[in-house]
Structures are given as C-alpha cells and as structure tokens.
C-alpha cells in the first residue's frame, strides 16, 4: 500500500471534471423542484440530450453547437412532462418515470447510426495567467469550457433565487401554489419555464458525457447519472451552493475509493459506495431548515 501515490492536486482537478455532468443535471432539477415540481425523468432527459448533442456535433463538427442542440433536445422532451403534469394534471412521479423509459427508447432509436463514431475534439481551456498559478492553477483553471459553464449556471441560479424578483416568484410558487395563485402569479407558466430549464440542463449534462467524457455515443451511456443528480438535489437541501458540495462529495467518494484501490488498499467498495446516499438521508434528518419545497410533487389546478 502506497498512499503517497495519491496526488491530491490531480485528484481535485479530476473531481471537477467528474462532477460536471451531475452538477449540470442537478442544478436544472433544483430549479424544477424549487418550483414545486418533482421530475423523476432526469435520466431520460440526460440521455436524450446526450444523443441530440452528439448528432448535432458530429454533423456540424462543432461541439458548441452540439451542446446547444442537447439543451434544446432536453428541453423539448421536458415539455412532454410539463404538458402532462401541468395542463393535464397527471401524477408527477408516474409521468417522470414514464419519461425516463421514453427517453431511453427514443435516444437509442435516434442514435442507431452513430455508434462507433468519435465526437469532434473539444479542447481544454488553459486560462492564461490563472492557469499558471501553482497548485490552484491545474486544479481550477485548466479544464474544458463546459466545466466553467456548469459552475456559472450554479452561481447564476443561486443569484437568481436569492436576489431576483423572478426567483422570489418561483420560490413562492414552489412553497405554496395556492397562495401564489391568489397573489396573481401564473403558477403553470412559472412551472413550465422551470421544467424546460431543467430539461435543458439535463440535456447539457448528458452531452457532457457523450461529447467530452467518453466521447462517443452508446446506448444507455448515462448509466444512472440522472438518478445521482436527483439524490444530490436532496442532499443540497435545494440550495445551489450546497449542490456543488454534494456533487463533489458524491464524485469524491467514487474517486477516493478508486484511488485507495489503486494504491493497493483493500476496501469494501460496496459499503463505501452506499455512504453518500446514507449521508443524504442523514442530511435530510439533521437539517430541518433544509425542508423540501412545500408544494413539491403536488398538482395544481386553479379551481374556482
């Protein structure tokens, strides 16, 4: 066993990359849940984004257009969920699960002719000056642009919820839709926008896998990342900044256990892999302030 082989700088740097797809998907779902909607179809939207992004990137040769295509693909798919749950008042849990099934099937059909092709290059961004700072430079400032886009979205979401009026409306709708409606807010409209934002972010997260991480299209390639994103939203108590912490913790446990293995340490992998989920439950119990949005998962109908 040789723990000195673990280089903490590189470990943290790779953690930033590993957490990116989950951060993207989770921050979208966070907005959706803050608006009072529980969309369990993150996995389906992610994989649809992964295939849409891949198809666009391969055909245009531009990963950037690919990411835009992925966001649109995810958002369009989420509209289906929005229409059913917001206009036809279908149960959100069941609709979300159906969305996952639908997305997995749809993506596989769409991607049939794209197997075994490599995505166009998406180079790392070595930020001048900042990237040369010792220690911090390689950890923070030498990644591909999407890593920063993900972080920027998290910060933007935080600012949006905390400082903007629209953010206040969104929270009001999520906490108590009856009251928000009585105050004259358009509950359904706010929620539809939130759902589409969630879909777009999940799409970006999926495309990060198919365009940067793997980078190839294979069926079922998200392999459960969408479900982890759901867990992280809960772990974060619906707070954007804690979301980063959650994503690094979840990703960190995986990276750490692989590191310990590579260093030759015998560890019970399964039990370590459980720990983030158990930690999430503990967070739910301990942090009373981290209560779920009041109207989470409930249908809203403006009855007269």
């Amino acid at each position: 066993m040789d723990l000195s082989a673990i280089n903490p700088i590189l470990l943290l740097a790779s953690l930033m990359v590993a957490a990116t797809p989950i951060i993207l998907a989770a921050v979208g779902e966070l907005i959706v849940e803050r608006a009072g909607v529980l969309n369990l179809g993150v996995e389906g939207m992610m994989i649809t984004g992964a295939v849409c992004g891949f198809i666009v990137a391969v055909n245009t040769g531009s990963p950037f257009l690919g990411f835009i295509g992925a966001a649109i693909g995810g958002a369009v798919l989420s509209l289906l969920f929005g229409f059913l749950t917001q206009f036809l008042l279908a149960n959100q849990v069941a609709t979300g699960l159906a969305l996952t099934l639908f997305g997995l099937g749809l993506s596989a059909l769409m991607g049939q002719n794209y197997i075994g092709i490599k995505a166009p290059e998406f180079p790392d961004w070595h930020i001048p000056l900042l990237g040369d700072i010792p220690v911090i430079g390689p950890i923070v400032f030498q990644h591909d642009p999407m890593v920063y886009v993900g972080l920027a979205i998290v910060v933007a979401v935080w600012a949006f919820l905390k400082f903007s009026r629209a953010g206040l409306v969104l929270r009001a709708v999520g906490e108590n839709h009856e009251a928000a409606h009585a105050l004259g807010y358009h509950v359904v409209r706010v929620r539809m926008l939130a759902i589409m934002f969630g879909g777009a972010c999940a799409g970006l997260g999926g495309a990060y896998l198919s365009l940067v991480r793997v980078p190839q299209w294979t069926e079922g390639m998200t392999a459960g990342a969408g479900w982890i994103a759901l867990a992280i939203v809960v772990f974060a108590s619906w707070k954007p900044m804690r979301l980063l912490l959650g994503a690094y913790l979840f990703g960190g446990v995986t990276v750490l256990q692989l590191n310990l293995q590579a260093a030759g340490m015998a560890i019970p992998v399964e039990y370590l892999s459980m720990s983030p989920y158990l930690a999430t439950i503990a967070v739910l119990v301990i942090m009373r302030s981290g209560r779920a949005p009041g109207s989470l998962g409930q249908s809203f109908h403006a009855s007269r």
Partner: protein
Amino acid sequence: MLMLEKRPQPSKTWTLAAPILAVILTMICGGLLFAALGKAPLETIRTIFLDPLFSEFAWFYRPQLLIKGAPLALIAIGLSFGFRAGIWNIGAEGQYIVGAICGAAVGLAVYPTESIFIFPLMVIAGVLGGMLWALIPGILKVKFDTNEILVSLMLVYVAEQLLASMALSTLRNPEGMGFPGSRNLAKYDSASSWISENAGMHWGVVAAFIAVIFAYVTLSRHQFGFNVRLAGQSPRAARFAGVNPKLLVLVCMGISGGLAGAAGLFEVAGPAGQISIDFNVGYGFTAIIVAFLGRLHPIGILLAAGLMALTYIGGEIAQSNLGLPGAAIQLMQGMLLFFLLMVDVLTNYRVRFGKGATT
C-alpha cells in the same frame, strides 16, 4: 385555450373508456412509429397486443403473463394504500431487493436440508425484510418529518449496493467457479416458490391474487380503507375522525414494503432463481406506474399489471419475429404510459375549448 373544469364526481363512463382510448391512441402512434422504421404497422401491433393472448403459442404466453405480471400487481397493490393516503413510497425497488436478500439468505443458510418449514420461513423473512426497509423512511417521516419520497428513493441505491455485495461475497455460490451469484433456489425443492412451472404458477402469483382480493375488501368494506381514503382526500377531516396520521404512515409504509419484499422473495425463489448482481429489473419502479394506471383500484391494478406484462412479452415476440429494435418497444411503452396518464384527466375533469370556457 384548453380549459379544465373539475367534475363533482369522477365520470363513470370515462373511468372505463379512458384506458381503451389510450390503448387505441398508442396503437395509432405506435403504428406510425413502426411504419417509419420500415415494419408493417398492423402486423407489429397485432404481434405486440394480440399474439401473446391468441396466437398459435398462446398456451405458452398466457402463463408467462402471470409470471411477469404477478410481481407488478403485488407491489402495486401495496403501494396503492399509501398513495391513496398521500404517503409516497417510491422505493419499492429497494424493498423488493432487501426482501429477496433476506428470504434467500434463510433458504441458503439451511441448504441442503429439506423441510416443509423452509419456504414459509423464507416468506416471513422476505416480508419482514421489505417491511423494515420501508419502515426506515416511515419512522423518519414520523419522527423527523423528512420527506418519504426522497428517503425511500435513496434507500433504493443503498439496497442495490447491498445486493452487489451479497452476490459477490456473502451469498455467493461456493460451487460457482468463482462467479458472482448465489445457488439456484428454484432447484432446491424446499425453497422453490414454483407450484407448476409450465402453468406459470408460483406462490407469488397466488399471493398477488390474494392481495388484490384483500385490498378490494379492505378498501370498500373496512374502516381502515375508509381512513386511508379520508386521509388522502382531506387530512384535516381524517384527524377529526380520529385517524392517527403517524400510525397511518407506518402502517401504509409497512404494507407496501412487506408486499414488495414478498414479491422479491417469490421472484428470487422461482422465476429468477438466484441472487445476482442484476437481480432487480425495475419491477419496483414499474409497479408505481402500474398503480397509477390502475387508478389505485385493486381491479384496475390487476388489469394494468396484465397490460404491462402484455407489452413486455408482445414486445419480445415482435423483436424476435419481426426484427423490431428493443428501443422501439421501450418507446412504445413510454407512449402508452403517457397516453394513459393523459386521458386520465377526462375522468376527473371536463375539458372545454375556446375562450368562452372560462366561468
């Protein structure tokens, strides 16, 4: 503009007509999809929806419908109590896994002893395992007011890791040449849940039918059923009527977990045969959909489980006979669920079009 107006009472006509409409819509859209994939639409639809019931080999497929549908029905019945009362256990998949592990562990511990007591003991262990796993979110909700949707979902992931650990080490077959997976319980007479393999009968199928009848009687005739419905419709009224909400949470979580655990045990001791890393195939999640499709009504759940089983089996036939990609079946199942959820609105609401619809 599309306007919805709540009906004073759910429409009886639409309760029956809506699912039929949904199936027809699925057939139309599915047909278009299949045509786009270059398959004969009518033949494909017939293969998926009718061949399992009426083809040359229907005598083989019909029992298979029982095998595929039973765990779905059993879990969905359990979930329906909680869902009616507004208690959302979405972690049935985890309870199913833990039930299977506990039940199988009992059987494997006494292998190769033969005794008629072994299987009943396994059933008890399976039910208790699932029940305890479901009581974790239940107790946390009662004690700390945590959200049971999220805790039960987290526990699914924990259960999956536990399953991998069991298949790779604790319950691994010592004669399995080092491969993961337990001994085959279906081949161990005292532990097998099969009654007649060719007729598709195992104790899980029997249990599913018993659960349907039990749920029907409870919900329509018994005080508990009344309390459950009242709690779902109006928690305040329920409290005035003397319903203890905390107890109700625990009972509903216990029932759903127990039945999910039983389903896992029956599956591992029969159709699946062994604990393996990929033992769970999503019955716990599909059952949530089944519960809603069946409108949380026992008979509805039975029919919905049958319909889901039909699309699985019909889909396999279409894959192998017509060369339809597996993804197309998945997409069609997704469509079917969407349409069923969509038309559901007709039962509880009147739909009006145009501006004049506002009151």
